[in-house]
Each structure stands twice: as structure tokens, then as C-alpha cells.
């Protein structure tokens, strides 16, 4: 994955969370964090008082983890039947929820990211099951309503994540809680639960930084279907009903398809006869995934590590964004050893567990889902069509001209912040400064009067690339400095970067800048950006852009607004 980023995480709770802080710090999972817990039981004091000593630690992430029966006194009363009327307890509880939400909203601007695990009743609270969900009476109903209220109150807050704690608490059931530890040290949750919470918090942080997997490369035989197509023949593969094993493989394909639809790319690396395998993919009646669901494949008898490297080159993506799924322990071992940056999980032994295994993975976390995510596979397919026309075009210039590229430049706006931040955090290659920021911090930065940020939407005659460029600069007197210059690898090699730089320079000049500077950072993988800028500097200074070398290519048209 990418270079580790240090996060400072403040934990606030109504129980002792120091152990969670320690787990977050000791976990080998990225990002590396420094974590510290506020004294337990001081939720409101900490949230409402910016002068509370914990804020001196300058956290950039705040986790507020409370238990409903501790933080909402009326929930406890309802659970214990200690109320004059259930309706009154209910009303009071909802007022408590609002007070809690107000406090979180007050504290939220002090950090980049706030994580609030949702409320859940302890697994040992059976109460009266018949009435638990009765409106106006049942604690289960009340806690659900309280969570919904929080979701409503935080709906417009870009930096507050309401984290579904039920997802990780439910898997441990009664052993999620350790009442001995509560008696001894006011630790409500078991070590196992705290470890899961730490894992989930880390995955949210990775998602907010774009440190996620983008491509799933799958094997075929005994991975996407049961059996070996070359030996058993397409008609004897286990795939789909009524064969129960076939149903499992089909369910696994459905899980992969869901990933594909939300923007994760699918590819194939299989030792097989290509024609035969593709025939199964396109013609087998029970296949969920078809050829059009995959952006690349290497179906041959070559080494799979070499095939993965080729796929990465074809897609212009780093191997550190790859996840590799193969039923063969030998192949998994081969990839782990040859390409350690690829994530190679152990597939479960039974195909019935393939689907649940995939849907439980936390490596695809994302802070937002944008239009570009839903259309990603099409972008890559259009790119394949483009490459094919390049192969027949007589020269590069006339091929570029034939693409009819259009760039639509727009000042950064609230609506484009999620996608712009996604681009900023996920782009490794064409990235000038490798600055990683969360949505809120980036928006605030861009709002400064001396700062400017632009987003670029690119399309050509084959289709729409979506929002694939982001540039920003600051102006000081007659000097502008380009702070971010980020472009998706999807549009590399089409001189779009020239158009983006030309446009950005033009904007900087209209803001009164006589000189425009850029300083590429020396990152591990931003070679394309470094090389591009190296050709744009004046001979006298390696940070000063030479206007004679920054030219918007005439075959690219730029629209504004």
C-alpha cells in the first residue's frame, strides 16, 4: 500500500477505551496511528469544551463510542422499568439523542473525521422480546429510532461517519461484552470486540485516504465455477442450480458482480485455453459474470505473476491496488512471493464460504460513491476500444485528433468535493505533491481567498471519462504555486495533462500571477508527473514553469463553467 500516514485518533466514550487506543496503535494494519483515550465518562465535557486537555493533543480523528444505556439515561430507565410512563421515558431519550448529536456537531469542526459507532443494546439484554419493538415502549424500537435520529442529524456532515457497530458486534454475540472487565476497569467490551472495532476503524481511515483495493483478479476453474473446464467440459461444470455446489459458485459470482457495479474492476488470470474459457463465460446459461464485466484477462499457460504484471500495465494501475483470488494454494503462494504488494487472501476451503468471504472483506472501503464509480468498468472498456483504433491509426497525432477530446473545467464546488478528494487520495502516478486530505480539510483549504482549485471532466468520441483531473494553486503577490496537479491514469498519454496545466496556468495568470511555480515531490510512484513537469520548467529554474512550454494542444477543446 501507500506510504503510511500518521493519524492522531482521540477516543471518547462512556466506558474505558484505553485498550482500544492501544490496539489501534499496536495493529500492523495501515494507517499507522497514534491514539489516546479521553478519561471515561466525560463524553459531554470533552465534546463541548474545546479547552479540555485532550484537545491539546491535536487529534485529526475523533471516535465517540457510547453505549445507549449509559449515555442515554432514559434507555436505562426503560430497560429497568424505572419510569412513570413509557411515553415519557421515550420522549426524554430522544431529547438525550439530540443533546448528544448537538455535542458531536460542536466538536466535529475540530477534526478532519468523526467516527460514531451506532448504538446497540447489549446482547444479554433480552428484555421482553414480545414488546421490544413496540412503538413508544420497546427499547429495541427506541434504540433504532435513536440511531435514525443521529443519521438524520449528521446527514449533511461530510466528515461524520456513522459506523454500523451491529455489523461487528453481532458476530460475537454475548461474548462481545465482558462484565468482569466492566466491574474491574469499566471496560464494557471484550478484547475480541475491541480488536474488531480497531480493525473497522482502521478500514474507515484507509477508505478516507483512498488506501483501498481497486481490482479483483480471479482464477476460473474451481474459483468462478466448480470443475476444470479443459478436463470436464463446459457442460459438466458445477455452476448454478439445481446443483448445490453450483449454486455456491453462482452466489460468489453475484458477489463479484456487486463489486463490479460499485466500481471495483474485475480481471481474470487463469491457466486455461482462452477460447474455451471465454466461450463458457459468454455462453454458459448460469454465468452471472460475462466478458463485459471484466476489464482485462490473461487466460494462458504462462506464469500468473507475469500475467498480473501485464494486467497492471494494461490498466495503468499499481499492483498495490490488486486483490488476487485463486483456489490453488500454490498459485496464491506464487503471487505472494513474487508480488508482495498484491493482496492475496486465503480463500475458504468450501465454495459455500466464497461469497460471504468476499462480502466481509474490508479492503474496498470508500467514503463516498460517485457517478465515476458506477461507470468505471465502461471507462476501461472504452479505453480498450481506443487502444485498438490507435493500433490502426497511422500516426499518434492523427489518432489523438480522431479522439475529439473535450475537457470541461469547473471551479471546485461542494458537489465535486467527494470525487475530487477521492482523486487526490487515490492517485499515485500523475500526482505532483501526493497531498492526502479528507473532504472537509480539502474544501476548507480551497475556500481560502488566496487558494483556487479546479476540477476537469474529460470526454471523447468513445465515451465519458468522468471527473478525472484536479488542480489547485495558491497565489502570493505576483507568484502562484501549483499545489495539486492530479490526473487519473485513465486519461494518461493523450496530452490531457498539457490541457490541464495550460488551463491552470491561465487561471493563475488572471489572478495576477506573473510567475507560476510547481515543485514535484519525490514519491515512489509519481514518475509520470515528475517527468511531465520536468519538460515544462524554464532552463533557469527547475520550479518555474516556462509559458512557452505549457501549451494547450489544439486538438483538445476546453469548455469552462
Amino acid at each position, binding site marked *: 500500500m501507500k506510504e503510511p500516514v500518521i493519524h492522531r485518533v482521540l477516543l471518547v466514550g462512556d466506558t*474505558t477505551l*484505553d*485498550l482500544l487506543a*492501544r490496539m489501534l496503535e499496536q495493529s500492523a494494519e495501515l494507517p499507522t496511528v497514534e491514539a489516546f483515550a479521553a478519561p471515561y465518562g466525560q463524553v459531554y465535557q470533552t465534546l463541548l469544551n474545546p479547552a479540555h486537555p485532550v484537545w491539546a493533543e491535536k487529534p485529526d480523528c475523533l471516535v465517540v463510542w457510547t453505549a445507549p444505556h449509559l449515555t442515554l439515561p432514559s434507555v436505562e430507565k426503560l430497560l429497568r422499568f424505572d419510569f412513570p410512563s413509557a411515553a415519557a421515558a421515550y420522549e426524554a431519550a430522544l431529547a438525550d439523542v439530540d443533546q448528544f448529536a448537538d455535542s458531536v456537531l460542536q466538536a466535529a469542526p475540530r477534526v478532519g473525521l468523526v467516527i460514531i459507532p451506532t448504538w446497540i443494546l447489549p446482547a444479554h439484554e433480552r428484555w421482553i422480546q414480545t414488546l421490544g419493538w413496540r412503538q413508544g415502549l420497546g427499547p429495541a424500537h427506541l434504540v433504532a429510532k435513536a440511531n435514525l435520529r443521529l443519521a438524520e442529524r449528521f446527514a449533511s456532515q461530510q466528515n461524520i461517519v456513522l459506523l454500523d457497530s451491529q455489523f461487528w458486534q453481532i458476530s460475537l454475540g454475548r461474548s462481545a461484552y465482558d462484565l468482569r*472487565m466492566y*466491574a*474491574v*476497569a469499566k471496560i464494557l467490551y471484550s*478484547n*475480541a470486540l475491541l480488536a474488531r472495532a480497531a480493525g473497522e476503524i482502521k478500514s474507515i481511515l484507509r477508505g478516507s485516504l483512498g488506501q483501498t483495493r481497486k481490482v479483483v483478479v480471479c482464477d476460473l476453474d474451481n474459483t468462478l465455477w466448480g470443475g476444470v473446464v479443459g478436463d470436464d467440459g463446459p457442460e459438466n461444470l458445477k455452476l448454478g442450480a439445481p446443483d448445490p455446489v453450483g449454486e455456491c459458485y453462482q452466489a460468489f459470482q453475484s458477489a463479484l458482480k456487486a463489486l463490479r457495479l460499485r466500481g471495483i474492476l474485475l480481471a481474470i488470470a487463469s491457466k486455461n485455453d482462452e477460447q474455451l474459457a471465454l466461450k463458457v463465460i459468454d455462453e454458459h446459461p448460469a454465468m452471472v459474470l460475462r466478458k463485459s464485466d471484466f476489464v482485462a484477462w490473461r487466460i494462458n499457460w504462462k506464469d500468473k505473476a507475469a500475467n498480473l504484471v501485464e494486467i497492471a500495465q494494461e490498466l495503468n494501475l499499481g499492483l498495490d491496488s490488486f486483490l488476487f483470488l485463486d483456489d490453488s494454494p500454490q498459485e496464491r503462494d506464487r503471487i505472494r512471493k513474487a508480488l508482495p504488494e498484491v493482496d492475496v487472501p486465503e480463500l475458504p476451503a468450501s465454495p459455500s464460504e466464497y461469497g460471504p468471504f468476499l462480502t466481509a472483506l474490508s479492503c474496498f472501503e470508500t467514503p463516498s460513491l460517485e457517478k465515476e464509480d458506477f461507470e468505471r468498468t465502461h471507462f476501461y472498456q472504452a479505453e480498450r476500444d481506443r487502444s485498438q483504433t490507435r493500433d490502426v491509426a497511422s500516426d499518434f497525432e492523427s489518432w489523438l485528433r480522431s479522439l475529439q477530446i473535450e475537457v470541461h473545467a469547473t471551479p471546485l464546488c461542494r458537489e465535486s468535493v467527494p470525487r475530487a478528494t477521492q482523486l487526490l487520495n487515490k492517485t499515485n502516478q500523475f500526482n505532483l505533491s501526493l497531498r492526502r486530505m479528507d473532504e472537509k480539510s480539502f474544501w476548507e483549504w480551497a475556500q481560502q481567498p488566496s487558494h483556487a482549485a479546479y476540477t476537469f471532466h474529460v470526454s471523447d468520441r468513445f465515451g465519458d471519462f468522468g471527473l478525472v483531473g484536479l488542480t489547485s494553486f495558491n497565489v502570493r503577490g505576483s507568484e502562484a504555486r501549483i499545489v495539486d496537479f492530479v490526473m487519473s491514469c485513465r486519461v494518461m498519454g493523450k496530452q490531457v495533462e498539457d490541457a490541464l496545466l495550460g488551463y491552470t496556468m491561465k487561471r493563475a495568470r488572471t489572478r495576477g500571477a506573473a510567475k507560476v511555480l510547481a515543485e514535484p515531490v519525490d514519491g515512489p510512484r509519481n514518475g509520470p508527473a515528475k517527468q511531465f513537469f520536468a519538460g515544462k520548467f524554464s532552463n533557469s529554474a527547475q520550479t518555474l514553469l516556462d509559458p512557452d512550454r505549457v501549451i494547450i494542444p489544439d486538438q483538445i477543446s476546453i469548455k469552462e463553467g
Partner: protein
Amino acid sequence: MAAKELMMELIAILSEIRPGKDFVRADNFFEEGVLDSLDLTALVSALESCYGVFVDVDEMVPENFRSLAAIEKFLAGKGVGA
């Protein structure tokens, strides 16, 4: 289980909780700052999952876990290593 083997396992468990500390020489982890009360809860949890024992709330006191010898004695009382 041989006493030496158990000792090595305990050192491994403790090192996971507090890396790089000298557990062999310490007479009292808690008084000498090798472990704190938070570590005690992590230690109990680790011992429970490693040896399948149950540590009751009245047993969760520093005396039972203050040194390697104390932990060994405590576990022996639960039938571990005996």
C-alpha cells in the same frame, strides 16, 4: 506441559502485550511499571483464550499476575501445567 515450556509461552504472551520488557527478572510487574492495570485485562483475556481457563472477577487482582511465578501458580490452580 514442561514448566520451561509454559514459562516460554507466558513470556511470549506478555511480550505481545508489552513488547521489549524484561519479564524474567521482574518481581512485581505492576509495582515495577512493567505492566499496568489495562495490561492486566489484556493478559487475563489472552490467558483465557490460550489455556481455556476462566478467571473470575475476584481473581482479577494484580497479586495473581504480578510475576511469571505468580501466573504459573495461578494457572496451576486451574489445572494448567500441572
